[in-house]
């Protein structure tokens, strides 16, 4: 994990009508680290991802990626620059088999630049790359799993498909929106090595998580949000012991 800062957020704010979802949130993410974001329900974690990746327009604040300001960029341009995200409510392309779901990111301009394959629209090439990517994330190549319709896959596979969709773009950063949620213990056990492998490949991960124990195993630093405000930041063990964080999760009486 290097000391270069790859992503900088300053003063991000967003309100939906009267509801303040984000209030003046700012943090830095270092290249190659796994940065966790925790907080109770409704603390604005998903809104934070949406604002950074331009699926929702923030009311105020600035976002810098490698010293370039990307605050006003449209979502597809941000993805093209190398920042990808998963979706908490997964909506794979229903009518397509799993590996075909990856054709779409592989078709994008970024994949053509960074893909490491010949490109040019020949049917065979993208299909092969798609199957390769699926194998990387744990879909057994020889089984029927990659060929099943995406909508019929179990949750663990769908989550991995979401990650694969990001990986197909050879991104620099992935925002993982609750990738561990809805998974059984064995499925999580399968996900963690994947996350670690991504880190080894040099991808910076920002993980919004609700399952703290799993996050503990992978995260380098963690930030806590409550009611849209940043209340703590630092190594996981420090943040977890922070009084405000405990109050946020357990309520004043529970501390």
């Amino acid at each position, binding site marked *: 994990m290097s000391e270069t800062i790859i992503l900088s957020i300053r003063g991000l704010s967003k309100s939906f009508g009267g509801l303040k979802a984000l209030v003046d949130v700012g943090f830095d993410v270092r290249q190659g680290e796994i940065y966790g974001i925790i907080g109770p329900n409704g603390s604005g974690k998903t809104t934070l991802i949406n604002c950074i990746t331009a699926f929702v327009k923030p009311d105020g604040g600035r976002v810098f990626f490698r010293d370039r300001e990307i605050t006003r960029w449209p979502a597809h341009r941000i*993805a093209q620059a190398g920042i990808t995200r998963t979706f908490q409510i997964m*909506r794979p392309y229903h009518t397509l088999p799993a590996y075909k779901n990856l054709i779409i990111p592989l078709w*994008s301009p970024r994949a053509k630049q960074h893909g490491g394959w010949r490109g040019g629209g020949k049917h065979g090439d993208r299909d092969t790359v798609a199957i390769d990517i699926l194998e990387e994330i744990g879909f057994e190549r020889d089984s029927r799993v990659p060929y099943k319709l995406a909508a019929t896959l179990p949750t663990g596979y769908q989550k991995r498909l979401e990650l694969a969709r990001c990986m*197909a*773009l050879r991104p620099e950063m992935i925002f993982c929106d609750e990738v561990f949620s809805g998974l059984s213990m064995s499925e999580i056990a399968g996900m963690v090595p994947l996350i670690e492998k991504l880190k080894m490949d040099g991808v910076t991960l920002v993980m919004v998580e609700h399952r703290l124990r799993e996050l503990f195993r992978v995260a380098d630093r963690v930030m806590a949000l409550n009611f849209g405000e940043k209340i703590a930041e630092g190594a996981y063990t420090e943040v977890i012991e922070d009084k405000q964080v405990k109050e946020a999760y357990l309520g004043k009486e529970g501390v």
Partner: protein
Amino acid sequence: METTRRERIDRGLKVRTEGIYALSSFEEIIYLVGPRLVLIAGFLLLPLILGLAPYWKRVVNIMCVYAILALAFDFLANYVGLVCLGGALFVGVGGYLAAIFNVYLTLPFYLSIPLATVCGAALCTAIILPCLPLRGVYFAIVTLMYPILFSRIIEALNILGGTNGISGIDSFPGEYIEQYMIIVAMLAALFGMRRLVSQDVGLVLRGVKDNDQSIRASGINVTSIKSLAVFIAALMGCFGGAYIAHLYMWAGLSLFALDFSIIPIAAVVMGGGGTLIGAVIGSLILVPLSEFLRFFGTFRIVIYCIILVAFIVLKSEGLMVYLQRKYHQFERVVKV
């Protein structure tokens, strides 16, 4: 207590031929290729068969034009998720441009038709562009309005021939060219579109209908993709319009008529949305029907609409889906 239920199972022949290219028997090859060969051969032989009945030649020509329009509608609505309520826009623009190229610029038909197709498509895409970043209902509104807008402007300003239209367009040199041009175009459009939607770019286009957030997150500009889809559909529509202008040797306000908007929609709904071939089948049925209904005047539009609504409400999958099911699967009653 015994209850029964209906079960549908793929035919053995289908399973054997699914996804495998090593076909071992003649029977399997015919099963797969048969329907397509029948279709292609049937259409190609049609002009020869109809050499005996000139009236029906015209009907076949018109039918092929509507088939192309229906293919465009099916593609836009069921593959990309954009409901185009005004196919007449493409027809009118294509037709008038062909007239301009042919009559005012005296270009021969083999130049005026391609030029009208491409320029018309570019023009139509450009004017539809503003509503593409928005939700689907705006596309429906805008496409609904444009044909009406254009026909009113032409009428009001009395340009491009006004209510009389532009006459004196060249006809085709020879009946066989006239017929085969449109038949080949239709077959090309049909098989071309089928190929397109299973290509990689076709998957991206289909993704727009399913989940356009995901497409954005994959670094693709959704508006560009939608423009591409509209352009492709506009190419088909403008070609149809240019052809009709040369067929009737006249381009007038009737090119923006409701028929060109509604019949493709009815054909697709009847033939089976999302199958592409259903669009052709639907036109095959509706266009001759509309010839019979010509006697009723504008009432025929009412009939199309009633058929349309009936099919939508009864959630009928359309003829093609029904036929495909029968072809690929058989049903039996099983005791539970």
